[in-house]
């Protein structure tokens, strides 16, 4: 299962025409203690780059943008009660939402894990 990364510090797992999206370990580290996550409602149609979710720490609020276009099939309900999952398991249990991929070509040009690692090293 390929995993893609964006410059906005999101990861995307693609399985068939379904994609799971979350924020990276680097992003949660930057944000600090996550206190609230608002995920999109099922059925929401998102265009690439649209505001999809909101993640809040004590002192900051950030928008999470849809890295690719698609229709939301599920938001991670576990984050309603346990937003700290984003801190403890950002790239697994702390996923944000799933969507059906409407245009697989949008995945082209996204980074793989190695490229993302290099990208983050360049930021510090």
């Amino acid at each position: 299962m390929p995993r893609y990364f964006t410059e906005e510090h999101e990861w995307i797992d693609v399985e068939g025409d379904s994609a799971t999206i979350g924020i990276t370990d680097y992003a949660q580290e930057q944000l600090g203690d996550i206190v609230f996550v608002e995920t999109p409602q099922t059925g929401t149609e998102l265009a690439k780059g649209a505001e999809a979710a909101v993640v809040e720490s004590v002192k900051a609020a950030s928008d999470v943008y849809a890295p690719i276009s698609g229709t939301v099939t599920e938001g991670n309900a576990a984050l309603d009660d346990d937003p700290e999952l984003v801190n403890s398991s950002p790239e697994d249990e702390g996923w944000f939402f799933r969507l059906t991929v409407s245009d697989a070509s949008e995945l082209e040009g996204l980074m793989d894990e190695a490229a993302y690692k290099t990208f983050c090293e360049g930021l510090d």
Partner: protein
Amino acid sequence: MRYLPLTQPDRQAMLDVIGAASVDDLFADVPNEHYLDGPVEGLPLAAGEMAVEKHMRRLSKQNLAAADAAFFCGAGAYRHHVPATVDHIIQRGEFLTAYTPYQPEIAQGTLQMLFEFQTQVARLYGCAIANASMYDGSTACWEAIVMAARLTKRNRVLMSGGVHPHYVSVAQTMARFTPGHIDYELPVLASEPGDAALIGRIDEETSCVVVQYPDIMGRIPDLQRIADAAHDKGALLIVVNTEPVALGALEAPGNLGADIVVGEGQAIGVGLQFGGPYLGLFAITNPKHVRQMPGRLCGETVDADGKRGFVLTLSTREQHIRREKATSNICTNSGLCALAFSVHMTLLGEKGLTALAAENHRLACVAADRLERVPGVSVLNEAFFNEFTLVLDKEARPIVRALAEKGVLAGVALGRLFPDGEGRENGLLVTVTETVTEEDIETLAIALEEALA
């Protein structure tokens, strides 16, 4: 100057440390042509305490204080007895001269007070959560409208004619600059608030219905009925209350289907002060809406030693973090007024608030009965709490002015609030609180009779 501790030798010693020749030199970045080399011309120079106090007392004497009149004014600002304890507490320097509690370790006094205040307001309104206060009732009302638009993603606002016209005016002003559309019709001079007509105007585009309880003429709308109708169409009910003492006698709006309850808290603890500073109250019945709520919030937590403590929380909604995505433009709350409210409410408790409300209502009933016997006067209201509308057989404004000359502040003429006639110019809104004596009522009745003769 008595507020400036530096002496001339201090200033010189400090300039030496800085390496500047004079205080004027510190302003070197101000272009020469714009720098003032002496005090602004044409303005008085410094004055001692006695002289300033004398000047201000002279100005204050040009006002007729409520205590020196038979006093019946209301319409969004109410005169109640404020216990001496309230003013003592709010003048303690630790409350008076503290800043917003951004350093919670040394601001637990303000924070615990705000937590208690939020709880008191939530219970009074029959709501789940109240914020730490807003500027005043009128701005809280507008903020509620904006919040309803965010929650429903609709923009049509239905405001009842019973809402205070100044509150409507604030909403209309703000709506001019935002996508909101205010649907408002002036109130009819009738014995009941016209709930059915209001309900008939709710549609699928309506984000919220705004109703005042009791309304600007002292009438009491049927909130549950309006709430049911609003909810049927997917709209929210915003209830505005300008007289919190009324809720000692009337059912709480939150128990009658309101989604957002806002109001003016001035009546408890704050005093008249010619209209400000006042105290905006804001509460919601559904705790899930809290992240869409404007204003500061104080929450409970623990410190590093495990002790209970309080902090300002959910600040990501606010503009210093969210910038243009903030829930509100409001930055400060009305902290000291919230303290005054909370101290007064603590002194009253359930027993005192209920008794205070009962006494207000008793006196208002006495006044309504007495004034109705004045020739040329009728009482409009079917139901009321401590405020009701008299319909005179003449325009009320000149009567109010004439009575003021005799030391009787008879109330607020509806013509002052609604300058456009249609019979409202004969309406006189009379408010009777526990500060009114039966003798005052007799004075008003006799003065009205003379003026109308």
